[in-house]
């Protein structure tokens, strides 16, 4: 087992459409906020961990070099980690390993995306090879629609019930986003608005899908010794899990989804969690699509397979439910992809340190943060605790 790792604090940009700043300036907005919030002097950093989506989405290759100045990285090592949608959790895990190994005491971790500058869907096709898959899974909604339909058919969940549960999540999250000052899309929705919104890829409709966001998130990770010296209320990394599966989409079961199940299990085992629904106080689940969030509840053991719709409709995962999920509004309301997973970790840390403001879950002591990357290929989970 490695050394204890603390999260001292974070900073986020106001996420949204941000043509008011150039990309490095946007990254700097999160970093300045992070340094102010944590009281860290950048000259004391041992290194920087940075990541985004693939270069095609950034418009510039090797953005960690482009952003070296705002990353305050002169004279310091930069590690870049890039795992598509799960980049943010991978960044946090990279920093965790670095500090747990004893090789660093103080790190800044930054993830960013400026999605409105390019064509996100088109650039995402470039994560697929042109021999076979590029023609058939070029748009993310198609992948998630297939996965959702396979799941509902496998467990015999009526289409109307899946729709009702997805609608409940959409209404709750877009409403919860009003409590999150950084969230991109905040909207009061009625069931009718969600259920009659235009179809993106059947059965996924407009309000089931995350937005195209610009934004960044920066965090400070520290050793126990350094966290004490800084004297801030810290969150502690209790468990990490990361798991992948075969490249070709049709090779693995995306319902009994091994990488999601395994990532959560690794993190729970490390944190000593036996019953996640009882032992977690809040979860920041990666939810770019409402339908996929339901499946994650099951893969993460929040409930049995086939049960997520019923429990969601009973309010189990609402802000005032037994296990509140995505009280920040989640990825569904804010998705600057390279930052998104790190925002999940930052939100989880804010929750267990009682600093989540209007979307604070009262008394939260243990939280889960999660993100997924590639064509349903990788899942990463981090468990944070107040002690």
């Amino acid at each position, binding site marked *: 087992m490695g050394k204890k790792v603390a999260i001292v604090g974070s900073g986020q940009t106001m996420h949204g459409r941000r043509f008011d700043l150039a990309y490095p300036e946007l990254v700097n907005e999160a970093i300045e906020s992070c340094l102010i919030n944590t009281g860290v002097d950048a000259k004391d950093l041992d290194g920087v961990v940075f990541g985004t989506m693939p270069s095609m989405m950034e418009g510039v290759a090797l953005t960690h070099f482009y952003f070296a100045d705002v990353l305050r990285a002169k004279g310091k090592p930069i590690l870049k980690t890039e795992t598509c949608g799960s980049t943010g959790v991978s960044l946090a895990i990279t920093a965790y390993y670095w500090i747990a190994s004893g090789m660093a005491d103080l790190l800044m971790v930054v993830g960013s995306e400026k999605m409105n500058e390019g064509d996100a869907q088109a650039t995402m*096709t470039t994560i697929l090879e042109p021999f*076979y898959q590029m023609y058939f899974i070029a748009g993310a909604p198609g*992948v998630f629609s297939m996965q959702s339909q396979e799941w509902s058919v496998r467990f015999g969940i009526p289409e109307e019930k899946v729709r009702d549960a997805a609608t409940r999540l959409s209404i709750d999250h877009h409403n919860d986003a009003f409590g999150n000052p950084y969230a991109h899309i905040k909207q009061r929705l009625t069931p009718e608005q969600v259920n009659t919104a235009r179809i993106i890829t059947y059965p996924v409709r407009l309000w089931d899908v995350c937005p195209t966001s610009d934004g960044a998130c920066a965090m400070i990770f520290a050793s126990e010794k350094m966290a004490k010296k800084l004297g801030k209320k810290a969150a502690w990394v209790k468990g990490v899990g990361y798991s992948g599966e075969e490249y070709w989409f049709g090779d693995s079961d995306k319902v009994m989804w091994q990488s999601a199940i395994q990532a959560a299990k690794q993190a729970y085992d490390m944190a000593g969690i036996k019953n996640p629904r009882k032992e977690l106080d809040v979860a920041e689940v990666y939810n770019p699509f409402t339908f996929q969030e339901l499946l994650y509840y099951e893969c993460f053991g929040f409930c049995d397979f086939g049960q997520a719709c019923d429990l969601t409709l009973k309010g189990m995962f609402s802000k005032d439910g037994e296990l509140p999920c995505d009280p920040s509004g989640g990825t569904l309301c804010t998705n600057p992809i390279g930052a998104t997973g790190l925002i999940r970790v930052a939100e989880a840390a804010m929750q267990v340190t009682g600093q989540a403001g209007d979307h604070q879950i009262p008394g939260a002591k243990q939280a889960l943060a999660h993100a997924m990357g590639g064509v349903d290929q990788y899942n990463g989970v981090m468990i944070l605790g107040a002690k």
Partner: protein
Amino acid sequence: MSKEFSTFKKVIRLPHKYGAGPTFTRFYEGLKQGKIYGTKCPECGDVLVPSRSMCPKCHVNLSEWVEVSQEGVIVSWAQTDKDFFGKPGQGTYTVALIRLDATGCDFLHLLGGNLSKVKTGSRVKAVWNEEKKGHMLDIKYFEPK
């Protein structure tokens, strides 16, 4: 916003010649002849399609070639009327995971023909384009049987 900031538009065009290697090359030669080939893993016995040079589960090299069935069942599907970058063809796009008979994985391709009654579990068969170029889209789509 009170002020409009400048933007700078640039198109990056980078031609790239992707080498298909021996396994996809042979698969495409099969398509030219109206055949779908897989490779069989000597350890787990799965026939994987399209053909691979390695079994992703057993991590052994694959050299046994098998012509696979052009029929199978729909495992899942998704449909959109939207146009998007890289979409093959025009109009409604229906993509599916298809388990071809006696294979060990799902094959991704398009659905076409009369889809009014199609659902998960429906049987489908391959429909080919007349002109075959040695390309994944030589199979026009899979249609309900």
